[in-house]
């Protein structure tokens, strides 16, 4: 085991360890604020085809026309005029860590990414500000026809494939922030897995915001062809600044018949990042889509990974953990839309609120007419650690079919004095005892993570638990 409990406990009291930032020395940085000129300049700079440029400009119109959402979280703190929409840190993308500029290389070293790549990843992409600065895929997968590129390279090198799917799962006018992303997107991952190819080790992308008032708008498109399998993992961190940054990604996934895709996110943005992400997948006949979504950081998260079950026998799962501490609001959940018959879905949400933090479960379960034999189970468990914290549940259910089997359970619990006393009577300090109860509470989700991520998740929870009791 990489980390022992005592090592973990020893680190309680440390600061947010990703809070460092590098000096800004960029190859290209757009001015603050969002105009047609900025959008056109991004497209120009990337040397994009006309259709993408038009798509961006149209998206900007949609973004400007749409009002700010008034549901979910408080977004009034976002100042769109004060954000840098595009920053290119380096001139070219590196193929090895050694080729990265020293300050960026040091960032990845501090985050432990090169080591992770060597040990247990089939491929890795690393995005710094707006651009992917490093990309690599194992040679044998490349030989099998697997594509794992940053989105910009994907567009350049596989334009027809991108054009066929881009914006089809999440239309550019889907919501205000999807429109924003569609206008100014940069970076993200483009993945294609050919029929029958199963990628055993996860592919990973790592997203890092470095500059103050930065907006990061990565765009990810994953196509898993018939009978194929891929597990994609993403991690996110940022430095701590006094003013806010914005992360607004769009992720579109197509899971073809008999294929399976698992998408794992460990979001640990610093507590001054607005994290407003649209994630949606479609699953065809007998396909399986799984979202594993861990939200530990950010100031305000609004994210509801969705699965549209389009083909008979398709299965979808959303496993979501939210941890809201001081000044944080995690508005997270999941959506399952049953379009085809005999489809099934499971949404499991676990949230923890402490030190005045607020976590909300917001979910949608929809069964369309004709989706007979649909089965769905939604379980939301909330744990509140103190009187100042808050949890809410907003489960929306729309059923237009009679022959369905739907279950919904929700629980809210507190850490009981008796449970704490029991663990303390075995020699655990109050903080250790509380951390153990919390780790156990989220265990149904951490056990689904690759071991290294499970260890990291538990470590982050221990850090989050600092000062939460006593």
């Amino acid at each position, binding site marked *: 085991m990489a980390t022992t409990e*005592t090592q973990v406990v020893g680190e309680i009291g440390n600061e947010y360890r990703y809070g460092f930032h590098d000096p800004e020395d960029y190859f290209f940085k757009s001015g603050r604020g969002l105009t047609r000129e900025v959008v056109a300049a991004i497209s120009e700079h990337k040397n994009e085809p006309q259709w993408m440029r038009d798509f961006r400009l149209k998206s900007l119109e949609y973004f400007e026309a749409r009002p700010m959402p008034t549901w979910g979280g408080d977004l009034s703190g976002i100042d769109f005029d004060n954000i840098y929409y595009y920053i290119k840190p380096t001139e070219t993308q590196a193929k090895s860590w050694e080729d990265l500029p020293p300050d960026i290389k040091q960032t990845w070293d501090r985050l432990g990414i090169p080591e992770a790549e060597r040990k247990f990843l089939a491929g890795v992409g690393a995005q710094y500000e707006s651009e992917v600065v490093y990309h690599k895929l194992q040679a044998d997968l490349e030989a099998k026809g697997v594509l794992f590129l940053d989105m910009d390279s994907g567009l350049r090198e596989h334009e027809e494939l991108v054009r066929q799917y881009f914006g089809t799962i999440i239309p550019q006018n889907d919501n205000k922030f999807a429109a924003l992303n569609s206008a100014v997107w940069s970076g993200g991952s483009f993945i294609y897995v050919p029929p029958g190819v199963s990628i055993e080790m996860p592919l990973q992308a790592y997203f890092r915001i470095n500059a103050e008032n930065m907006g990061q708008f990565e765009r990810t498109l994953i196509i898993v062809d018939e009978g194929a399998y891929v597990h994609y993992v993403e991690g996110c961190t940022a430095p701590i600044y006094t003013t806010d940054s914005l992360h607004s990604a769009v992720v579109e996934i197509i899971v073809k018949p008999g294929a399976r895709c698992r998408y794992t996110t460990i979001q640990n943005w610093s507590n001054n990042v607005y994290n407003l992400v649209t994630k949606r997948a479609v699953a065809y006949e007998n396909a399986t889509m799984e979202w594993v979504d861990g939200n530990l950081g950010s100031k305000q998260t609004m994210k509801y990974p969705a699965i549209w079950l389009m083909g008979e026998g398709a299965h979808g799962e959303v496993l979501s953990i939210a941890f809201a501490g001081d000044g944080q609001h995690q508005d997270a959940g999941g959506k399952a839309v049953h379009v085809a018959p005999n489809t099934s879905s499971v949404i499991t949400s676990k949230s923890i609120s402490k030190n005045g933090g607020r976590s909300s479960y917001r979910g949608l379960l929809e069964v369309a007419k004709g989706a007979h034999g649909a089965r769905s189970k939604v379980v939301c468990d909330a744990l509140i650690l103190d009187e100042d914290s808050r949890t809410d549940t907003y489960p929306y259910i729309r059923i237009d079919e009679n022959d369905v089997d739907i279950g919904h359970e929700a629980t809210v619990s507190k850490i009981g004095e008796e449970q704490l*006393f*029991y*663990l*303390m009577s075995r020699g*655990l*300090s109050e903080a250790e005892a509380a951390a153990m109860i919390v780790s*156990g*509470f989220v265990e149904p989700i951490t056990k689904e993570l690759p071991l290294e991520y499970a260890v990291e998740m538990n470590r982050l929870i221990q850090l989050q638990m600092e000062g939460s009791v006593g």
Partner: protein
Amino acid sequence: MALLEIRNLHVSTEDGTEIVRGIDLSVDTDEVHAIMGPNGSGKSTLAYALMGHPAYQITEGDILLDGESILELEADERARRGLFLAFQYPHAVPGVTVASFLRTAINATRKAKAGGEDDPIKIPEFRKQLDAAMKQLKVPKEMAGRYLNDGFSGGEKKRVEILQMALLDPRLAILDETDSGLDIDALRIVAGGVRELVGPAMGALVITHYQRILNYIKPDFVHVFVDGRIVREGGPELAEQLEAEGYEAFTPEPVGGEA
């Protein structure tokens, strides 16, 4: 100097109701003391107060471990000094396996023994100790991977309490109604496990309603506990007398009795 000394101990609940009304008791290593009393006499309150439960207030008297007062110590500090309480109703901790919990608890105690320095037990050594203790207490191997007390039967919980005791290596073990919920075979195994640990390194305080468990853990001293006080003390023969005559004979006359 005895290992544990209880001096004129008075314990109240948060609303001020006095439950334990002045008791004196000394327990040393290599001794088994039984506290016998009817339901509602305050036995469990005494156990909780000794372990440092925050809901119980010590209004008078003192508890000394190795001659030092532990009243100001939290439960975890008392545990790290060698106190152990086998709970009457152990709590479930879903998501945390018995093995993972035990390793964390062992490491907490080891850290205290190493003067605050981390001194984690090596995994193979832990496995060896765990396997040996589970075998001795006839706890099925798969229990190590189950979530602590989550969905355990009453008997399973009690066995896992004693398993914890065996692995945490306390100097003074308090057993609160460990016999309840155990069938006769389980009782024999559990009691045998306790008896095995009592010796130059450990003493035990066995709290019970029935004499049954005392057939297997032979007590050296028996204290009859009624209405928050020790009303009679003696050797093992006292337990037999209680079993034959019931607690009635030991119950003080009600003041201004109406009966």
